[in-house]
């Protein structure tokens, strides 16, 4: 099959199916069966359709671009299959809605790195003028296809689960968390269809980010994801905490988007395009013009896809030099010939680039885009929204925390990877390391089962960012996928527990394994996966593979940058903390004796509709990391999408001198791999052991530990006081400034205006007095106008309003007459 034509079609339809469901439920939701029960069926059918289409697309992809083991070792030795030539136009050629490009992996002999197969094009143009194109388009490579399958697969499980979990919303609900003024609880109609409506929109938005062919489109769906999260986190909007959390999520994300827009505008302003891929556009005369995309601009084929600062950015930074060229050209008689100037400038760009001009602009662009990812993927310092997002129904948490929203940030860093300079990567690694450590420490002491998982998500996202930052492109994205499986599993399990216990507080649980064996078992699988359990060098859960890859890459980075070895320490320490808090959670919830007998007696295993998705996800959490004989596996599939030129060693940063980003394939082999695997195993085992000592066997009482380390415990229990800190340094000052400005608005600006009006009135009164007593009837043109104004003002005071119509008409006519008089006397006379 012709992949260039079928892939956009299949994935496009897979993307739109949830939108159809959204619109259908929006208009017909309440009429879909009793209480809108069938809305779940509609939404689930839509997402299953997406899943099937995504799987078909994956089939087409694999048929055209088989994944082989050879790919796994990356670097320079692939390219057996593929289309020769870097830019073979795909299919329909240039034109609206149909333009497409297919770029095949080509034999890398001779120059530079291999180009991964990819397809790009535009479906629909929102706006196009003066070089700016806002369009809805696609960029499809192995990563896109894989993310489609992962997102739709997990979303399908969550849809099925939610149709059981949300059954309370099928009839009138009494919300015990909402207290009315008269002391009673809120009684409201169920909102079953609305939940699935928002869920569908969420999936649509997320898939939009995944398939996006340009940054503007990413931003569009970025915002839509934000607003979907607003709807879903604030689903119980009568609860103050829920609507607060929804607003917090959206506004904190907007803070990240601030940076993202700055980055976006830096790219647009300096490069004039936001498209990832190369395009062919038709200019005014109808001739096709090639427009390189961002990836080719930053990593052009001419350099063997090595990173270089694009000419537009160099020229921008070399503004003074360009001005000199303009002056010289003009002095040499070239006049304002832009062609001559452009030619001279172009000839000197390499020179300027060698001087390092424009590097910081590329840095700002990269860091700016990353800021958006910091918001969406809940990285330090913007992670505060994610734990609060627990206010949403549990299936939403599962979706937000695994396949959508938070995944978007990591995905975008991965997608945008070719444009990120080593300096940016190092910033990303830093942020990731800080995030993973802070979040893991907070998770140690949290008692709300969902909050533990929330902080664990933040921490795992930190892992992914760190991996991407230290050069582990495939490792970070691999962990994104495996984490999506086990984190959605863990959340759905916690939802099952909450469903049974009607509480989130782990201190009231315990011993639940007996009453809910399926939940306990699947959650144990999830815990094992998240800590990366496995038999070293033999086999393991999915987390075993992805976490090892991250550790190995961090170790390789530490080896390559002797002064920056602490990053590896953060990763290893984080692994220990993860193991501890995850098993603390499991032991507190399922093991031992019930702490609250009332709860334990009423607990029950969840219905099959909720348990089945758990089993599916548990299986996936185990097997997702496996590579089949012959080389097929997620790791190799991701490797197939590796952006051109990013597999090798990246050296040098201008901010962080001596920075080396090691090539990723080296970390898979030899001593690095062995050390990393053993470290991972040892830290995880130690963590589990410690958790067992404290929470299973009870040899050391947690209370004693907490008491002995009281200040540290308080610090962690208050989540490092981040909320308080942000309130003190951001929210409160902004509100104070606002109050000040608002006061000035009324007290100063408005007063000045009123003062002016008052003086005009005084002046008019004075003028009227003179008019009456001094001038006495002598009316000259200037005074007339002033007098009119004064009269008007006085009349307003007396409240005789109607005369103003007359005044305006009279005034206009008077001016008109005056004008003609002037004209006659000046020109005609």
């Amino acid at each position, binding site marked *: 099959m012709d992949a260039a034509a079928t892939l956009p079609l299949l994935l496009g339809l897979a993307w739109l199916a949830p939108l159809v469901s959204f619109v259908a439920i929006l208009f017909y939701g309440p009429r879909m069966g009793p209480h809108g029960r069938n809305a779940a069926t509609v939404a689930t059918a839509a997402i299953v359709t997406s899943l099937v289409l995504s799987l078909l697309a994956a089939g087409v992809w694999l048929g055209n671009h088989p994944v082989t083991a050879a790919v796994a070792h990356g670097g320079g030795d692939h390219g057996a299959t593929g289309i020769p030539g870097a830019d073979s136009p795909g299919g329909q050629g240039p034109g609206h809605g149909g333009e497409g490009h297919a770029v095949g992996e080509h034999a890398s002999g001779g120059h530079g790195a291999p180009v991964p197969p990819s397809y790009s094009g535009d479906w629909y143009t929102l706006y196009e003028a*003066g070089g700016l194109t806002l369009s809805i388009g696609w960029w499809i490579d192995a990563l896109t296809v894989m993310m489609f399958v992962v997102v739709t697969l997990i979303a399908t499980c969550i849809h099925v689960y939610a149709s059981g979990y949300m059954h309370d919303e099928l009839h009138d609900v009494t919300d015990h968390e909402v207290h009315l*003024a008269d002391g009673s609880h809120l009684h409201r109609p169920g909102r079953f269809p609305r939940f699935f409506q928002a869920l569908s929109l969420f999936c649509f938005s997320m898939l939009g980010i995944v398939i996006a062919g340009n940054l503007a489109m990413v931003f569009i769906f970025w915002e839509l994801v934000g607003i979907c999260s607003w709807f879903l986190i604030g689903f119980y909007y009568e609860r103050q905490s829920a609507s607060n959390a929804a607003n917090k999520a959206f506004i904190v994300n907007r803070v990240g988007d601030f940076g993202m827009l700055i980055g976006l505008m830096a790219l647009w302003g300096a490069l*004039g395009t936001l498209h990832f891929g190369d395009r062919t556009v038709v200019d005014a005369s109808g001739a096709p013009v090639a427009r390189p995309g961002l990836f080719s601009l930053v990593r052009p084929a001419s350099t063997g896809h090595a990173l270089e600062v694009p000419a537009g950015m160099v020229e921008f930074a070399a503004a003074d030099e360009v001005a000199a060229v303009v002056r010289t050209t003009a002095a040499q008689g070239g006049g304002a010939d832009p062609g001559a100037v452009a030619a001279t400038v172009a000839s000197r760009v390499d020179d300027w680039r060698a001087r390092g001009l424009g590097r910081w602009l590329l840095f700002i662009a990269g860091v700016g885009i990353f800021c958006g990812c910091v918001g969406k993927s809940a990285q330090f310092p913007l992670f505060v929204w994610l734990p609060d997002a627990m206010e949403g129904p549990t299936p939403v948490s599962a979706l937000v925390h695994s396949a959508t929203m938070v995944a978007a940030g990591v995905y975008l860093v991965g997608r945008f990877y070719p444009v990120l300079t080593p300096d940016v990567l190092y910033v990303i690694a830093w942020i990731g390391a800080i995030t993973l450590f802070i979040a893991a420490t907070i998770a140690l002491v949290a008692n709300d089962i969902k909050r533990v998982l929330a902080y664990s998500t933040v921490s795992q996202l930190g892992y992914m960012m760190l991996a991407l930052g230290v050069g582990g492109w495939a490792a970070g994205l691999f962990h994104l996928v495996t984490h999506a499986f086990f984190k959605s599993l863990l959340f759905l399990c916690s939802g099952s527990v909450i469903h049974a216990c009607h509480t989130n507080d782990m201190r009231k649980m315990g011993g639940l394994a007996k009453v809910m064996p399926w939940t306990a078992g699947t959650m144990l699988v999830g815990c094992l996966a998240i800590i990366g359990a496995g038999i070293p060098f033999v086999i393991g859960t999915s987390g075993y593979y992805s976490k090892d890859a991250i550790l190995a890459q961090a170790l390789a980075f530490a080896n390559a940058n002797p002064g920056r070895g602490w990053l590896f320490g953060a990763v290893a320490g984080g692994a220990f903390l993860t193991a501890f808090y995850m098993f603390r959670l499991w032991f507190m919830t399922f093991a031992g004796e019930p702490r609250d007998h009332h709860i334990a007696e009423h607990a029950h295993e969840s219905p099959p509709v909720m348990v089945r998705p758990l089993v599916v996800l548990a299986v996936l959490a185990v097997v997702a990391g496996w590579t089949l004989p012959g080389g097929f596996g997620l790791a190799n599939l991701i490797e197939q999408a590796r952006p051109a030129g990013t597999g090798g060693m990246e050296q040098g940063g201008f901010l962080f001198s001596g920075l080396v980003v090691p090539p990723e394939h080296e970390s898979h082999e030899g001593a690095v791999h062995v050390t990393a695997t053993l470290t991972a195993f040892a830290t995880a085992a130690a963590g589990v052991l410690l958790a067992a000592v404290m929470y299973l066997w009870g040899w050391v009482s947690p209370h004693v530990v907490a008491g002995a380390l009281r200040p540290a415990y308080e610090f962690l229990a208050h989540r490092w006081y981040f909320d308080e800190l942000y309130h003190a340094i951001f929210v409160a000052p902004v509100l104070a400034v606002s109050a000040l400005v*608002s006061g000035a608005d009324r007290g100063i600006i408005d007063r000045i205006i009123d003062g002016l009006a008052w003086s005009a009135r005084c002046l008019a009164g004075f003028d009227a007095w003179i008019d009456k007593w001094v001038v006495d009837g002598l009316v000259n043109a200037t005074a007339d106008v002033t007098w009119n104004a004064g009269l008007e003002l006085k009349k307003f005071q007396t409240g005789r309003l109607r005369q*103003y119509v007359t005044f305006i008409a009279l005034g206009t006519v008077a001016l008109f007459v005056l004008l003609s008089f002037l004209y006659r006397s000046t020109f005609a006379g």
Partner: protein
Amino acid sequence: MNGFSPATHLILAILGPLVGAAVAWGMAPRGIHAVRQSALVTALVTLGIVGLLVLRGLADPVLTGGGAFAVSSVPWLTDGPFAVRLSLGLDGLSLWMFGLSALLTLTAVLVSWKAIQDKPAAFYMLLLVLEAAMLGVFAARDVILFYVCFEFTLVPLFFLIGIWGHDDRRRAAVKFFLYTLAGSVLSFVGLVTIVIWNASHSGVLTFDIAELTAGVRAHPLPMDAAGGWLQWLVFLALLAGFAVKVPIVPFHTWLPLAHVEAPTGGSVDLAGVLLKLGIYGFLRFSLPMLPEASAVAAPWLFALGAVGIVYGALVALVQTDLKRLVAYSSVSHMGYIVMGLFALEPAAVEGASLQLVNHGLSAAGLFALVGMLYERFHTRSIASLGGVAARAPWLTVMFVLFTFSSIGLPGLNGFTGEFLILCGAFQRAWTGVSPAWQATYLTLAAAAVGGLVLGAWYMLWAVERVFFGAPRRPPQDGDGHPAEHAVAVAAGPHHHDPVAHGPAHHGPAPAADLEWHEWAALAPLALFALWIGLQPGAFLGPSAAAVRGATAQAAAAFTAGMQPPTTAPHTVTANLTGGRQR
């Protein structure tokens, strides 16, 4: 529809509301129902006529090419050297605003349906007169007619605020009237100076805007000491009127007061159309006729726009009155438009022109909804409201929708306009200014991006406090305010739950959700918000040529003055071709 010429069609559109106003006045003895029905019929018929005219305009390549459409010109004073004619017509600058004026009048009539019980005949008469003035100002092709209509919009609104407004209505009306009048008198002096200057060089005293534009381009007003800085003075004179009208910070203080005190229908027209007159004035007069002075002023107005964005947003953040909050959000949003206009980049000015319509829709929608809230709960205090979503779910849905439109959510109208404005502003900052200005421009553009964060903050904050949270019963003021009657009357057959106004009972007290006339008022705005959001090209395209034509001279003058050094390929293409590349 081909039975009569577009010109006749246009005249009909303007005369329609005047006839309707007379009819509404004449219906006074027959009671409120007849009055408002006649007003509704007039608004609908006018909207129909205007809508068809807009469609005819869109089909006319002359209009989409930047020219004028439906032009008619009646000799008025052609004695001797005079060539004064009354000219009407539409072009790309005015087309959408012309249509929006008719649409928002319908909204204004419908939102006043029950709110206005006192002297309805006078109210609807004034509303329709206002519509005629608004249509006239956008259709005017000569200075005199423009200025008469421009000023005449003040009169009906003055009475609308002064008679049907809230407690402090008189002060608000007087302040609004005098402030804007004081500014626009100066504008008139400026316009007259242009006319005289042109007459002194061409020998014909013409008031035709197109002729004047061509005339001052052939003989620009002097922009140097030898010529007495005449162009600069005229620019400042025009600025005085337009800046107050927009309003550009710090000339905005009349706006919150006028909005808060105005009846809902007045607020809808004020926010939706009248604020746009200032921007329209810049596009129609300042930029094309005084390009050099505009170019000199551009950095300052760009800066004032950015300041306005942040300033308006900050003030909105601490408002306790929902209507005042929406009013300050208007100040903030008008800042984007001013900034986009004076970025003098194609993307930004097109974005600004789209944003005129966008803000007209979203601000009108929000003001209408605030009015509906007031009719139900007799308060606009954010602290007194709460949990409204449980009582009036559809009202909440609509408010959230217009909130999203206002904070620039993709898929709705606000996004494209703001995004284009930002793209243009940044492009200007990166590649279009001299190095000395660059840091300033970048800072200002970044401040505009910061406005997006603040915008989401104050709007969502308001939504949360007013609509979400536990439902509670706001204090009912029993002081016999006119709006109290409105609710009493509202308990008619459309009223689903009469319990709402009964004694206190358990759970959320259900208030009436949107009624038919409220749906009818909001639905068209919402539909257009969605339509523009999904297909902005359809709205940008027809006006693009005219908007670029209006700003091209000023942009060229700006570039000449700035000597931007960069010759990035895409910039060259954009500036040289200046056309759309489809």
